[in-house]
């Protein structure tokens, strides 16, 4: 398993990736949006996913999580940086090569029910990818096998999406992603909108598929409880940047960035005084006009003048643990170490 520093055995490596929106629109709609600036949805992000590893990407809506996931799959043009999958550069690949590579990288889309065509039966939905890619009949997995991989009975094959429950629709989406036999899956909010009991079954399914098929995942979610259970590595995004990345237990037990601390404090079980200090005030600022310096400074209770002017770089703050905050060690020193984390568990050096 690799943290941000080790990358030798990585399946996916993202270096300094940027995705910008708005330039094309500015040219086309100049009469209307005269001063429309560039939206830097993803701004210089680096991370890696090792073989069989689960990386959790967390952040509030508008932080660029989904954009990053889609850019990794080559679904958005890249403004800068590179995406290396199994050693080859996805962003500079010919259309044909990318099509072939795409079989190894799949996506479980955000809104499972809405992403399934209402006019296709489940078996049609599951064979669609084979038809598009022109897979030979012998190489296709039978529908019943795909269904049983996601623990659905054969009787669902002839159903239409409206006949499925939320959890079942989610399973069909997962089966669709599995059809091409991928190595890597971007799962965008795989548990959002499900009942607690259904969340547990989907999470168990994702874990089992990883063991059985050796899959790697990038799990995009705002559910910290899910990510704390599921992920090996957690990356925290805020306004297009990764503000903290590290092994899941380090992020959860000893978060360094004030934003990560705030997010974790929004899960219950923290002391009231602590909670007040880290309660997130206001909302994510407009990404078109991000704050100067550290993008989190307007909402940070520890912000100093330096934070307004200078952008913090990602620095090492522990083994395989990086954060982008000028004052992370000072903040940690001010806080009683026993209170600064969820459980007052002893920290391993």
């Amino acid at each position: 398993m690799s943290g941000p520093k080790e990358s030798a055995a990585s399946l996916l490596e993202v270096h300094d990736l940027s995705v910008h929106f708005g330039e094309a629109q500015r040219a086309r709609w100049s009469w209307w949006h005269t001063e429309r600036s560039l939206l830097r949805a993803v701004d210089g992000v680096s991370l890696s996913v090792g073989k069989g590893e689960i990386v959790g990407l967390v952040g509030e809506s508008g932080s660029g999580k989904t954009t990053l996931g889609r850019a990794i799959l080559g679904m958005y043009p890249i403004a800068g940086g590179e995406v290396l999958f199994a050693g080859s550069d996805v962003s500079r690949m010919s259309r044909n090569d990318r099509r072939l590579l795409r079989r190894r990288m799949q996506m479980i889309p955000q809104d499972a029910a809405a992403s399934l065509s209402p006019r296709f039966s489940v078996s049609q939905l599951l064979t669609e990818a084979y038809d598009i890619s022109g897979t030979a009949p012998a190489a296709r997995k039978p529908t019943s096998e795909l269904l049983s991989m996601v623990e659905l009975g054969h009787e669902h094959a002839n159903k239409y999406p409206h006949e499925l429950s939320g959890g079942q629709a989610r399973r069909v989406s997962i089966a669709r992603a599995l059809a091409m036999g991928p190595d890597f899956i971007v799962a965008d909010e795989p548990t959002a909108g499900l009942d607690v009991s259904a969340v547990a079954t989907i999470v168990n399914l994702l874990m089992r598929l990883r063991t059985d098929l050796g899959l790697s995942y990038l799990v995009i979610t705002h559910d910290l409880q899910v990510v704390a259970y599921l992920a090996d590595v957690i990356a925290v995004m805020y306004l297009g940047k990764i503000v903290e990345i590290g092994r899941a237990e380090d992020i959860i037990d000893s978060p360094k960035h004030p934003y990560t601390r705030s997010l974790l404090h929004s899960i219950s079980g923290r002391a009231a005084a602590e909670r007040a200090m880290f309660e997130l005030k206001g909302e994510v600022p407009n990404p078109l006009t991000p704050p100067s310096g550290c993008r989190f400074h307007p909402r940070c209770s520890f912000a100093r003048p330096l934070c307004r002017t200078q952008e913090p770089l990602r620095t090492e703050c522990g083994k395989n643990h990086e954060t982008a905050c000028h004052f992370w060690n000072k903040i940690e020193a001010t806080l009683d170490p026993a209170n600064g984390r969820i459980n007052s568990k002893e920290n391993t050096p």
Partner: protein
Amino acid sequence: MTTQPILSVEALTTNYRADGMSLRGIKDISFDLKRGEILGIVGESGSGKSTLSFAISRLLPENAQIESGQIEFSGLDLTIASPKEMRRLRGDKIAMVFQDPLSSLHPCLTIGRQMVDALRAHNSGSRKEYQNLAADMLARVGIGNTGQRLRQYPHELSGGMRQRVMIAIALLLRPDLLIADEPTSALDVSLQGQIIGLLAGFREKLGTSVLIISHDLTVISSAADFVLVMYAGESMELANAEEIFRHPLHPYTQSLISVMPDRRLRGKPLPTIPGRVPSAHETIVGCAFAGRCPQTRHVCSAERPQFSAVGLSRVRCHIYDPQSGWLFDTEAEKPAAAR
């Protein structure tokens, strides 16, 4: 705080017609809500929690009806109130906040217009006066720059802001009861805390009683004084919010808590609740949870358990039944017909 309940729901049962059949809605729901109290209602989808809120505000869809039971609100039985009386109560004494603020706000009217309209529907005063009231309320829900906000349309506001506007409109007329149906489900975790804090704050300042409906036990436990757990239209457990997390009594509540992803279980599969919620078409003879319950016995699928008091809580489970229960009994199973 007085001890007189502001809202008292007694054995409330609803049904609805579909496919020419009468189907089960909520069954035999009872609870009291005192002034300034927050009651959280938790349940999975299809448990009837929204039906309960619509029944209280008498906004059930046309094919649904209240079959029996009483809803006493400030001394008035809402089950027999006329539509005219209900119209007067809604907005004024009973206010509602819904899950999706974008579809509950009128897209073509400014925030200010919608707030003033709410005031004008129940009062006679000058527009100027109302605009000041509206601006004041926006400021109280944490929206700055109120003059400009009042002139904006819903689409110009962010999701969290819209939900604040919904709460501001609901609180404008200082209602005695606020029903919030999944008020934070569409929001980010950081905003959930803010909105819940806001609701709790108004309870302190205005003495508003609040009914919060959510599928998220975490949200409920941080906000509510009491929690009612619903399953398949029935009340399973009613208990103090802290107590229900620490010592859940009903096996269903225990399952709900145990299936929440817990990092201490990393590497091990999460516990799940086998089976599924019985559909409205199925007739439930015994306990609604019997088919999925890890502690089920013969009596569970044969006889409907009472909503009996255990300490300060109430539980609908045979384990805790004063006569046939096996709470303190470690021997072999008692015969089903003990009573």
